[in-house]
């Protein structure tokens, strides 16, 4: 799983149920990079194809020009993937004693 996929999956998991705009804001804040709407939705599509998230459609909203929101939720497989990613990162760092110097200003 790539870093954007992981960040998107985490953003969905953090909110319980989230839609594209909220996910994009959260991912952009966490990764300190302004991701485009297209990038986030193609990632969400990929995660849904892998069975890591599922979605449902809300009622149409006037603020969206009469369109619905697609609300995403993490599946069991998605939760497992998050636990695996956390475990992998933790085991990679464990006992290394590596000190990373901060980036020069």
């Amino acid at each position, binding site marked *: 799983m790539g870093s954007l996929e992981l960040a998107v999956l985490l953003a969905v998991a953090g909110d319980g149920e989230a839609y594209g705009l909220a996910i994009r804001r959260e991912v952009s804040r966490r990764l300190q990079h302004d991701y485009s709407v297209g990038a986030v939705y*193609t990632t969400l599509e990929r995660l849904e194809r892998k069975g890591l998230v599922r979605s449902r*459609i809300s009622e149409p909203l006037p603020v*969206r020009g009469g369109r619905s929101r697609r609300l995403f939720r993490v599946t069991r497989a998605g939760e497992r993937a998050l636990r695996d990613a956390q475990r992998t990162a933790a085991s990679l760092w464990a006992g290394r004693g590596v000190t990373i110097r901060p980036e020069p200003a």
Partner: protein
Amino acid sequence: MTAPRSRTSVASPPRLAALLLEGLAGEGELGDDVMGDLAEEFAHRAEHDGTGAARRWYRREALRSASHLFAGRVRALRAKDVAHLLGVALSSYVLAFVLVSVTGVALRSLLVAFGASFPGSTSDPSWIGLAIMALVVATMGGYLAAFLEARRPLLAALVFGVSLATLELWLNVGFAVSPAWYGVAVPPLLVAGTIAGALSRMAVASRTRPPAGASR
């Protein structure tokens, strides 16, 4: 699910950018999701930062998202989709060619009136005249491709445009009968023409679309 589109809001997103995104995302869930999110964020920005800033943001966001949506659409294509799009491109070419041939006499008269001539009619062929003719075929073909493939209008038009440009390039490189500027300028002009034709078709379709949309 789509409800009647709001027609009361004062600020509206830039039309061309919205058409470009709609054309790339296509009909269906992805298109509605992307357009909905952009409309929502646009309304928020228009209220807080002003309409001008919101429109600039929308244009920039449309351009940034375009490549992702296009790549996503291409990745999702299967063999039968490719065959279908090539069929649409061929039909568009035949239809555009017939239409241009039918109106050819009038166009020829118009061009001759402006001092242009055609290969075969004089010893000095007018490649500008031919380039204009090719652009007309490309624009018309782009319109027809978007008309025939309403679910993926821009993708269909691009397949048509790229096929036409490749054919033109092959003819120019293979037979080397045209001047160098023609061989360099016309293929990209053809692709631009097909995009313009497809966007025109989409603008017409969005104007005639009933306000109470179909369900997703």
